[in-house]
């Protein structure tokens, strides 16, 4: 198994959100994340950003009970 540094690990955690990783890549990433707290945080944040679109959409699609949210665009 290849040992990688943080920069390469972030490449793998980014790629994983767009395309399945190969077995080697998966192992490499898993191993790095187990050892590196900063990359573990980075991985969580990439995932959070990945969910941001869906979060925005569900905020828009769940009708809000709050009718005056300051976005009233009547002149």
């Amino acid at each position: 198994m290849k040992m990688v540094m943080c920069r390469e690990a972030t490449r793998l955690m980014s790629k994983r959100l767009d395309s399945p990783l190969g077995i080697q890549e998966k192992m490499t990433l898993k191993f790095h994340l187990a050892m590196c707290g900063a990359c573990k945080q980075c991985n969580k944040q990439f995932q959070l950003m990945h969910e941001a679109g869906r979060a925005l959409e569900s905020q828009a699609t769940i009708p809000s009970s709050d009718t005056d949210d300051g976005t009233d665009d009547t002149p």
Partner: protein
Amino acid sequence: MVESLDSARDLDSPGERQRRLEAIRPRLLAFARLQLRDASEADDVVQEALITAFEKNADFAGRSGYETWVFGILKNKILDALRAQKRRGKWQPWDDDGVEAAVERQFQATGRWQNIARPRSWGDPEDTLTSERFWQVFDSCMIALPDNIARIFTMRELMGLSTRQICEEAGIKENNCWVILHRGRLLLRACLEKGWLAEADS
């Protein structure tokens, strides 16, 4: 049941449809602005989407929520607008603009994080995503991203297109797409952390 609210029957009344559409308009606008990076174009696509939704009401089958259906219409309109932007030559060629250098500054020569760039905890993800303040930071960080990168990032993460679809739209190789998304995520992450934790610490 929630579904019964969205049955096509309830939306037979034009007044009710109009009320529901007006209610989500601000959110649609915010979404379109993030993606198109042009306020007047965003206004136009939202207007078109609302008109289409109103006129094609019979197409709403009630399988999804009404607002979700409207959102789907908006996404198609945004995609059309992006294609038009590209045809008009509004998409700049892929120059690097110091992006690579900005990304490299986060790492030491060995490939480890620079101490000042080491990712820190953002707290509970649920709380983060439901915080109004987080979305304000998100907005300003998106504006700060270079156009080229932001466009690919939002196609992937807001519109939910696959990297293969993005390649077709943008006319780039998939490998290139992954590189751009990697840089975009690193830049956006750094910006979000700065804004989000600065607020939390104050």
